[in-house]
């Protein structure tokens, strides 16, 4: 683990640079292939709506993977993330309209821990509503 980000230089309330992730159907298909999760609700609108969903929805794990980018972009070394957890509180519907949706992610240091570690709390929202709950990472700083 090698990061230039020093524990001494952050405090509770330090904000991480925010990130906007545009999501289109192609992104979900690419993620399905890369992750091996081919659940039909992530690519077939006919099936998704037949089981009561508003549309095809993004993989929760796609949202989770996107959200932690705020932390890994901040620290540089992805190995600095020693813990990461979320609750999936809302689905992210992705319409096939050539535009898709935006996932907006922000993060803030919410606790200073022992051994140069900090807790970062993430907020992820789409269409004005948060989609993750208790999204937190423990990050090892220098």
């Amino acid at each position: 683990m090698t990061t230039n980000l020093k524990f001494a230089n952050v405090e509770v309330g330090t904000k991480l640079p925010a990130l906007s992730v545009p999501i289109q159907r192609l992104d979900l298909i690419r993620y399905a292939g890369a992750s091996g999760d081919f659940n039909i609700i992530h690519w077939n609108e006919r099936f998704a709506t037949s089981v009561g969903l508003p549309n095809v929805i993004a993989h929760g794990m796609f949202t989770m993977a996107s959200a932690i980018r705020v932390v890994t972009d901040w620290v540089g070394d992805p190995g600095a993330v020693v813990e990461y957890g979320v609750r999936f509180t809302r689905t992210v519907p992705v319409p096939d309209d050539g535009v898709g949706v935006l996932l907006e992610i922000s993060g803030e240091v919410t606790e200073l821990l022992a051994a140069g570690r900090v807790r970062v709390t993430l907020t992820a929202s789409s269409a004005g509503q948060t989609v993750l709950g208790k999204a937190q990472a423990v990050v090892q700083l220098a």
Partner: protein
Amino acid sequence: MALNPDLIGRTYPPSEPYLVGREKIREFARSIGDENPAYHDVAVAQGLGYADVVAPPTFAFTFVFASAAVVILDPDLGLDYTKVVHGEQSFVYSRPIVAGDELVVINTIENIRAAAGNDMITVKSVVSTTSGEPVVVTTKVIVARGTDAQ
């Protein structure tokens, strides 16, 4: 519809070893649009002290998900997979995963509980190298939607 609570504590046999591929890490990172050079460039990853490219923090879910089929499909559990959604997910790392790691997963049903007409199943997956070095523990909560809640 309640699931069988006798299965709390059931541990399944270790998965077949999963060999973490450099190109698989790159493919996964591209699929989330992440250009972090530690995922793509061996020299950069080595400069950070790793043997090869590093996997993104949630990469482990790909092979853990596949290994957990033994739980999801366990006939004793009685889960209807078409009614399952992902409720929670966490990762606690001993060290990052890097290309070349050969990893095995041991899945345990940690809890089964009913809440608001649904069943919540907590599955803990302990990931270690084939030589026994601990790498990451992932925990997921899956929610089996009750027929009365539809």
